[in-house]
């Protein structure tokens, strides 16, 4: 019946009036006993999930999302317990249930998938053994029968070569495949409830997209109720029907997914949506508004509304009285949209204006663009390469007679960076973007090609560079917890480069300069004597930026500076970087895996794959056709925090080839979904290195497909 128009699936269309939820959580409070008293990690959380429905729980780290999940499977550790409330699974209370009965439910009717698949699988057991035992233990079927089922299920989750995988150990397959195994294992017994705690957080964006597709498909096929926990609004928007937003241990808003994005009613939800860059937005046309302050620790939560210290609409009542999760708006929607705010009806997110003290960079996009165009080139790479020799494991290799092999981490990268501009580099893990900047800064010696910085050759490593070059090239690091030396105070750590590069003459001068730098990154002088453990992640990242700026470098290399931060803090740090750049005229290289962030932050973007640049050009040009097929695939994989946006469905097959012997011709040809546009299904791609096609001024694409064809691609995202 092809004439049948759009028809919703039964569960989404008509829910039977008498249908009971698979999972119902009522006023759940979970407390952990600590040395002095106890801490309520989760307070009064309620929600229900029906068959075939996916309920998303979002929030920043430390909001108690995972605790909710663990309390359902009664796995709160030795010191955690459910203090109040009920958890009903299929009508049966799970709190205080007999441990043996709970064990029977787990893995049979309730299954769980969580963040890091490598950690979740037993490293010393074959995958087949780990999967089959779910069946042999619960169903008591024979091992050979169980193996057959496991292979079927692996096929079901699109695992290539499932029979072979059964005999392997976890470390022998890739991260995406591990997560497929974990998901297959969870589905073996056809559970009624599947709990997924950040199932794709550790995965690359294209792998994530494929896993999310899989989850969505399986949910419809098996009618499983899914509790989906994520910090990423985009991911939740893609796979969930309904969403609960958690903040400081409480559920502050609960609504269908379209509703929550179209009509966010809690100030925190509004703040969250404001502080992530939209894909396609850039810094000259839009602004990110961070949420001020930070998530309080569980034992330091305010007595009134949990969000009150960070809220822009705070009133006296918010401090005094804890709001309840209450239905919002008219009676028809009462069941669907609830919010925990006293004033939700009065708040109009459209009328929101940033508070006066908020850090918002004031940029003049057009002026900057003009300046950049005219500026001199500060960094020039021509065919820069970095190969690592690897020793094989065979006897021959050990004796040194085997073939010498090399990992081609960076393979002939060329680009110019004009002074004062920002070049963003994107690509999935293992594409060589980190090695590239390590080579530029001199942590690695290059293996070939040219690299000039301020007209000086920088193909050598740090030990051979002069102090003048070293101080002009500084770096901002990814992990806030390791960017600062825990043994020294903030003042000492920012002061060190000042002394090292002779920027100051006396202690007093040093101190004054450090405080000036602290102020520049929006921290006050009281931070001078603090130790890193007394700072939050965002503050540490600010200090890291101040330290990089201390020597007044021309070029700052940023290695995923915001990817480890919570979204609300991420916005603040991005704003800070832009401000610093505007003030000091610093040039930046910016690495990130998040395409929206790169698009937002960069003037131009380079897309890397297997050590090579696939496409480079002005940011706005990269995100619209014509683009490289790989760029297209990346863009179509990005989770967009907007359920109404339409996104093309392009998925890459197979794994990234080993950089030990990258495919000949175009390195992307083994996975390219657009090869069929060329004659003989792209025979030329495997044989010949593609040409650099000039799409526009400064926009180059490394592909055999003619520009005209590339330009005819449909835009990946239509909002």
């Amino acid at each position, binding site marked *: 019946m092809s004439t049948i128009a759009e028809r919703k699936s039964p569960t989404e269309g008509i829910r039977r009036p008498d249908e009971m939820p698979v999972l119902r959580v009522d006023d759940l409070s979970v407390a952990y006993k600590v040395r002095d008293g106890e801490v309520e990690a989760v307070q009064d959380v309620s929600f229900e999930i029906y068959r075939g429905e996916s309920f998303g729980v979002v929030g920043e780290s430390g909001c108690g999302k995972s605790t909710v999940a663990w309390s359902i499977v009664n796995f709160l550790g030795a010191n955690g317990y459910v203090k109040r409330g009920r958890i009903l699974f299929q009508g049966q209370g799970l709190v205080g249930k007999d441990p043996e009965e709970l064990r029977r439910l787990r*893995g049979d009717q309730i299954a769980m998938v969580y963040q890091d698949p490598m950690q*979740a699988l037993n490293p*010393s057991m074959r995958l087949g053994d780990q999967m089959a035992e*779910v069946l042999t*233990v619960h169903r008591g079927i024979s091992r050979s029968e169980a193996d057959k089922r496991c292979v079927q299920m692996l096929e079901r989750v699109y695992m290539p070569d499932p029979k072979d995988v059964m005999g392997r150990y976890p*470390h022998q397959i890739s991260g995406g495949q591990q997560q497929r195994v974990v998901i297959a294992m969870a589905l073996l017994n056809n559970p009624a409830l599947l709990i997924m705690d950040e199932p794709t957080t550790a995965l690359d964006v294209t792998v994530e997209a494929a896993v999310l597709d899989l989850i969505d498909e399986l949910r419809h096929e098996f009618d499983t109720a899914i509790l989906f926990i994520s910090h990423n609004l985009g991911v939740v928007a893609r796979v969930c029907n309904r969403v609960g937003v958690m903040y400081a241990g409480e559920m502050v808003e609960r609504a269908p997914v379209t509703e929550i994005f179209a009509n966010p009613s809690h100030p925190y939800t509004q703040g969250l949506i404001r502080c992530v860059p939209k894909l396609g937005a850039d810094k000259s046309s839009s602004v990110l508004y961070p949420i001020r302050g930070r998530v309080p620790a569980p034992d330091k939560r305010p007595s009134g509304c949990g969000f009150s210290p960070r809220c822009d609409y705070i009133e006296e009542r918010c401090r005094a009285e804890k709001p309840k999760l209450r239905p919002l708006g008219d009676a028809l929607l009462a069941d669907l949209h609830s919010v925990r705010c006293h004033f939700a009806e009065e708040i109009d997110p459209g009328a929101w204006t940033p508070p006066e003290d908020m850090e918002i960079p004031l940029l003049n996009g057009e002026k900057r663009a003009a300046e950049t165009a005219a500026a001199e080139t500060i960094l020039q790479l021509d065919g820069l390469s970095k190969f690592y020799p690897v020793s094989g494991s065979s006897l021959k290799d050990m004796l040194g007679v085997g073939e010498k092999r090399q990992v081609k981490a960076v393979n002939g990268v060329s680009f110019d960076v004009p002074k004062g501009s920002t070049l963003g580099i994107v690509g999935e893990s293992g594409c060589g973007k980190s090695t590239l900047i390590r080579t530029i800064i001199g942590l690695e010696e290059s293996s070939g090609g040219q690299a000039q910085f301020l007209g000086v050759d920088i193909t050598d490593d740090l030990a051979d560079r002069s102090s003048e070059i070293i101080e002009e090239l500084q770096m901002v690091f990814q992990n806030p917890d390791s960017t600062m030396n825990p043994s020294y105070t903030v003042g000492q750590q920012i002061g060190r480069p000042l002394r090292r590069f002779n920027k100051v003459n006396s202690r007093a001068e040093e101190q004054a300069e450090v405080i000036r730098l602290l102020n520049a990154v929006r921290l006050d002088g009281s931070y001078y004597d603090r130790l890193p453990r007394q700072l939050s992640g965002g503050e540490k990242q600010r200090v890291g930026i101040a330290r990089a700026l201390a020597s007044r470098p021309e070029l700052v290399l940023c290695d995923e500076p915001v990817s480890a931060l919570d979204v609300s803090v991420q916005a603040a740090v991005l704003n800070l970087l832009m401000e610093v750049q505007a003030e000091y005229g610093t040039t930046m290289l910016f690495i990130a895996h998040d395409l929206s962030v790169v698009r937002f932050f960069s003037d131009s973007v380079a897309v890397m794959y297997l050590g090579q640049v696939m496409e480079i050009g002005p940011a706005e040009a990269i995100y619209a056709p014509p683009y490289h097929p790989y760029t297209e695939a990346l863009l179509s994989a990005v989770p967009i925090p907007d359920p109404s946006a339409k996104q093309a469905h392009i998925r890459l097959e197979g794994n990234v080839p080993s950089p030990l012997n990258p495919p000949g011709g175009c390195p992307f040809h083994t996975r390219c979904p657009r090869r069929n546009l060329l004659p003989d299904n792209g025979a030329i791609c495997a044989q010949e290195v593609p040409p650099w096609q000039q799409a526009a001024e400064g926009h180059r694409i490394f592909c055999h497909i003619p520009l005209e064809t590339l330009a005819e691609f449909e835009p990946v995202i239509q909002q």
Partner: protein
Amino acid sequence: MARFLLRSIISTFVTVLLVSIALFFLLEVGSGDITVKILGVFSTEEQRASYRAQLGLDAPPWQRYADWLIGNDWRAASYTGFPLVTEDNLQTGEAEWWADVNGELARWTMEDGELFMLTRQPDGSSNQEPAAADVWQIGENGEELFWGVDTKGNAVKWVRGAGEPVWVLTKAGLRQEGDGPRQYIPLRKGLVRLDPGKSLQTSRPVAVTLFPRVRNTLILAGVAFLVVMPLALLLGIIAGINEGKWIDRVISITSLGATATPEFVTGVFLILVFGIWLKWLPAVSVFLSSDAIFQDPKLIALPVLTLTAVELGYVARMTRASMVEVMDSAYIRTAIIKGMPYSRVVLRHAVRNALMAPITIIMLHVNWLIGGVVVVEVLFGFPGLGKYIYDAAIFGDFNAVEAAAMLTVTIAIATRLVGDLAYTFLNPRIRYA
């Protein structure tokens, strides 16, 4: 995996080599004049010099090291011109050096300026006759030389008509003899051919005296090991899965107490309790015959118990720590959430991973066991390797110390290799790397 194993094996060889160098130079070069100890403090410098020559101590250190490690019979043979071989003495069973002169085993002796050749008869006795005159060769300075093998297992150089006066240590004391050789090479096959030389204390081959001692010690340590390992691993696992409960507390604190108490203290207490107060077990291990250990197993009860007490605590603590870590890991969480019964979680999922770390450490810990063996053997008067090293070290008998120490080091390194192998076997990440 091949790579990992090859590495361990190469590293093991280098380690043994380094140890042998360190041991040799520390002892033979670092320690003072051993002849003082052998001849007594009242000996004269001349006597000591003569004795040093007889022991071959006048050779340069590197040469002595080479001799010690790989033997010197091949070097001596180039002087004598005859192949040098060993043949067991039929009475004592100890090996004697002979020169193979055209199929006949021969030795020489100088009496009153006259050189005699002793040829070995099939019954073990020897037939003495004057040596042929043509054995003498003309040396650089015109003197007549002969390189032969003497009756004490040295390759020696005699000069015709000009015998050196030599000091010989007999039971009655030092005695001077004439007609001594000019140069000595105390023949040995070297450590790599399992001949560590002669004891300076008893002048008997070290290898002969060492063997029964090693056997006794292996029995002692082996029994202790067999008692300790299963028990300690079991206790460690029990404590680990019950982290924080009373049973864990009891095991942990007892283990800590047992590890932190030196063997001699534990041993003394055990003697006090079982040997003196309860009178269940003999307080000392007096060996009336070399097979006493088999005739009266009670002899090793207290030594084994002492060793067990110390080792048990250590291994149990390691296992517990490892078990606690594993039980806290994400994959154990996965197993529990898969609804596996607790026993299966522990036995199938946890134990294997939890044993990986302790096994390498346990194998490294064999060192510690050997240390304990020394103390325990001294404490109980148990005639084993440990007491042997101790006695030899006190005397300064470096041939014996070197041999025994090399043996312990080899055992230690070998067990470490076994530990590496076991780890490789248990850990698929290495096996399939």
